[in-house]
């Protein structure tokens, strides 16, 4: 180690047609020279060049590479290059470089904008076809479950309910409670100025039960569970575990996707009920603190002004959200190929697509409800 400390940086000194090389020509000592050597070489006009290595203290392959570059620089100008005081080992390394050096093959240049656009569109179209076939496969596996209910893997389904439902209860309840508090506060201040504070109950009940709770819960679950599905299946794909399943004659969709789908279809509506309760409780607490509405008054008003239909209309959407989350998460997981980066990008994509589709579907439901006049 001591000798390594004392190594001098590689350098060159030019004297007419002779280039004196100094110092340690090793990978850690030639950085400066590799960037600045060629500027000073430009000044040499002679055509018979001597490279003197008598002051080179250390020499490795990287140094040999640089020396070879310098020699090639002159050879390209049709100059003759001689080496002086080159020892046996340096000569060996130098000939190793000249023997084994390969040119970097050209990379394929980026195609033109229109070509790229076409390729992207084509790729998106293919993706959609792949998604359709994935969907078809899933429906097929699902129909098997309906025909032979004994094949349903209840243990796995219940395990999924635990992971996606039970373990998410804390975060869903807390966030819904906070949303209830915020909503009650915002609406309360407006209504209070009209002296219509009690109407906060109607507003809270309608907005939470019909819109906010289903939407918020679905978005939390998409971030929590959809991403987990994509990452888990993606890693299994990379490990060839999915290939192994198929080789064993087991339907990967049936084993891996259906329990998640069924589990989430059961868990999400239940989570949504919890979110409604927590949200209304948050609103109730805020109404008491800010508007002075007692719990008894609140609940009395709530049961008379918010119909059971509101609850059902909100709950009706949640199985659809569950299907979206499970399908998109699993599909993106199956699309992973080539390495860790693709697991990351597919997981991101699954969350973005889930949330996009959830909000879009929610909008569609609103349109349908209003057309039906409910």
């Amino acid at each position, binding site marked *: 180690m001591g000798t390594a400390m004392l190594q001098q940086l590689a350098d060159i000194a030019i004297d007419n047609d002779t280039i004196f090389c100094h110092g340690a020509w090793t990978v850690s000592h030639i*950085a400066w020279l590799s960037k600045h050597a060629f500027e000073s070489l430009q000044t040499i006009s002679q055509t018979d060049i001597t490279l003197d290595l008598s002051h080179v203290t250390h020499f490795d392959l990287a140094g040999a590479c640089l020396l070879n570059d310098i020699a090639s620089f002159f050879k390209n100008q049709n100059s003759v290059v001689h080496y002086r005081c080159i020892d046996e080992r340096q000569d060996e390394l130098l000939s190793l470089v000249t023997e084994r050096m390969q040119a970097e093959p050209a990379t394929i240049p980026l195609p033109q904008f229109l070509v790229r656009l076409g390729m992207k569109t084509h790729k998106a179209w293919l993706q959609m076809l792949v998604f359709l076939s994935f969907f078809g496969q899933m429906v097929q596996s699902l129909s098997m479950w309906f025909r032979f209910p004994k094949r349903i893997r209840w243990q796995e389904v219940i395990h999924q309910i635990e992971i996606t439902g039970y373990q998410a209860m804390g975060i869903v309840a807390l966030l819904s409670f906070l949303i209830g508090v915020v909503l009650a506060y915002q609406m309360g201040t407006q209504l209070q100025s009209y002296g219509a504070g009690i109407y906060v109950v109607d507003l809270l009940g309608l907005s939470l039960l019909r819109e906010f709770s289903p939407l918020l819960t679905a978005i939390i679950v998409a971030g929590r569970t959809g991403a987990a599905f994509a990452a888990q299946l993606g890693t299994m794909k990379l490990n060839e575990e999915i290939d192994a399943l198929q080789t064993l004659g087991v339907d990967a969709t049936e084993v891996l996707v259906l329990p998640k789908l069924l589990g989430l279809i059961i868990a999400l509506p239940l989570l949504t009920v919890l979110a409604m309760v927590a949200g209304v409780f948050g609103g109730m607490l805020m109404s008491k603190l800010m508007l002075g509405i007692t719990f008894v008054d609140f609940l009395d008003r709530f049961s008379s002004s918010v119909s059971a239909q509101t609850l059902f209309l909100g709950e009706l959407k949640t199985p659809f959200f569950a299907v979206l989350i499970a399908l998109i998460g699993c599909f993106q997981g199956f699309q992973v190929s080539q390495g860790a980066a693709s697991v990351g990008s597919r997981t991101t994509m699954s969350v973005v697509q889930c949330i996009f589709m959830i909000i879009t579907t929610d909008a569609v439901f609103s349109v349908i409800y209003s057309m039906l006049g409910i």
Partner: protein
Amino acid sequence: MADEAIVDFQNITTRFGQQIVHQHLNLTVKPREILAIVGGSGTGKTTLLRELLFLNRPAEGNIIAFGESIYQATSQQVMKLRRRMGMMFQSGALFSSLTVLENICFPLRELTSLDEKLIVEIAMLKAGMASFPADAVHKYPAELSGGMIKRAALARAIALDPELLLLDEPTAGLDPEAANSIDELVLALQQALDLTIIMVTHDVDTLWQATDRVAFLGDKKVLACEPMTALVRHSHPLIEAYFGNPRARAAEHSHEETKA
């Protein structure tokens, strides 16, 4: 071989929970030799390499590398020690999001400030030395066969001109022809670059063809560390069992034939 040891494992004891892997193990590696570590499964061959690379830490004992006790080194010295070693992992451990060329360039870009053109040149040279075909350097690791991955991993391991090269099962999972060419490659690299090589292997052909000495791990210590010709005559029951089976015998015969 008058020089002092390049690596010295002193009194190493390694435990994983209750399980003791090494107990007071000693092993010395001389400069410019090719040393193979063999032994049954679970005898801690790879663990020994990982301890040298600071990836695992033994419960007791010390490792001297390049004349320095590695567990007393400051973090700066550790960085310097690491740069003097190159490691080729068993499954290659190539970065999956980078092409082969970018993989080989990676240590050069991160740890030196060389000119970009020179970095690519050095990387292409190392690929050539590891017999990695030039027209495949823009491929991603997922597109490569097992033999190609090993070659690319070898090229990355020698990118920084290490003095000490560690190979973990360089021929595992390769067809005999590819395994043979890796053996030749290891020998050629050792001669061209004056390397010291420590490799973990199960391949008896590799042991015959490409090693100076072989350390046999068993009973939590090094049972013997001798050249292959002496090791196969060793009388310890574990070593006899390892080299006494038909496969190992066949490798020995074929080696004698090629010599004759």
